[in-house]
């Protein structure tokens, strides 16, 4: 299995993602510059965190027009796996690969902290190794992580079990106090209708080593690698 990490001008978690795939997943991985368009040799691509195009206009708004994004759309349409982390989640929403939008945090602050999220669905290629209801501790670092969507979209996400992660307290309770940015329904991550595209604000790639405060993120990459191994 082969992974690609897409690099936009302003991406800054690309090396973290690369490190985790090569060291912890133990699989080949390439950086893919945003002007490239050939994704045919990859089984999964990661759209990493950072500040693509300086977050100009809106977070993720300009990255969506990079040449590689048309290829990512085709890649996703072929049921290949796409994981968007933080700015990657924002880009996937702007590109229409995921519903909703991420706006300025409710309290305006750039929030840089470790948070707890509850796995709401094990029915995705990224979470099937997780026990539903299990709590993962991962860092967040964003100013625009406040997930918004209309009522109809929210109902659809809930009905189809497409809300994958929600902010919770240490015990796994979904509370307002545990919501770091005002996200609707405490949503921290969602997946596409086909379940092969997932976006989340927390950084699993920065939570793969105990030295960094948590290794819970490994469970996501283990699920992802397990899915690809089963398909091979």
């Amino acid at each position, binding site marked *: 299995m082969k992974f690609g990490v897409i690099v936009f001008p302003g991406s800054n978690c690309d090396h973290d993602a690369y490190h985790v795939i090569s060291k912890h997943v133990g699989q080949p991985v390439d950086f893919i510059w945003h002007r490239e368009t050939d994704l045919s040799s990859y089984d999964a691509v990661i759209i990493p965190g950072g500040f693509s195009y300086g977050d100009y206009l809106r977070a993720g708004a300009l990255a969506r*027009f990079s040449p590689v994004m048309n290829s990512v759309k085709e890649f996703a349409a072929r049921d290949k796996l796409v994981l968007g982390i933080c700015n990657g989640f924002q880009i996937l*929403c702007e590109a229409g690969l995921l519903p909703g*939008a991420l*706006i300025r945090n409710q309290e*305006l602050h750039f929030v840089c902290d470790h948070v707890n999220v509850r796995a709401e669905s094990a029915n995705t290629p990224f979470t099937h190794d997780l026990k539903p209801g299990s709590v993962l501790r991962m860092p967040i670092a964003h100013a625009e992580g406040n997930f*918004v*969507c*209309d009522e109809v979209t929210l109902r659809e996400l809930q009905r189809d079990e497409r809300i994958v992660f929600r902010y919770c307290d240490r015990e796994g309770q979904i509370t307002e106090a545990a919501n770091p940015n005002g996200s609707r329904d405490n949503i921290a991550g969602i997946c596409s209708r086909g379940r092969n595209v997932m976006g989340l604000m927390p950084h699993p790639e920065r939570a793969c080593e105990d030295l960094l405060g948590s290794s819970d993120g490994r469970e996501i990459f283990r699920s992802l690698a397990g899915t690809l191994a089963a398909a091979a």
Partner: protein
Amino acid sequence: MPNMKAKVYVTLKPSVLDPQGKAIKHSVELLGYGGISDIRQGKYFEIAVDGSLGEDQARAEAERMAREVLSNPIIEDFRVEIET
């Protein structure tokens, strides 16, 4: 033919919370400005358009740009004015 100017105003939909506008309103009130019930922050774009396009086409182009790039229709509305 002189250039035209397309002015595009992008605003958050009324249903979308505007934390920045709220913070600005708070500061303005601290300065003593009274009678302000709400402040919403938006974006403003000035686009120089070739005069040969004609007003209708300039408007159509600016509206398309506003819809596809300058705004995110999930959270924002836009308004276009053409200055000839």
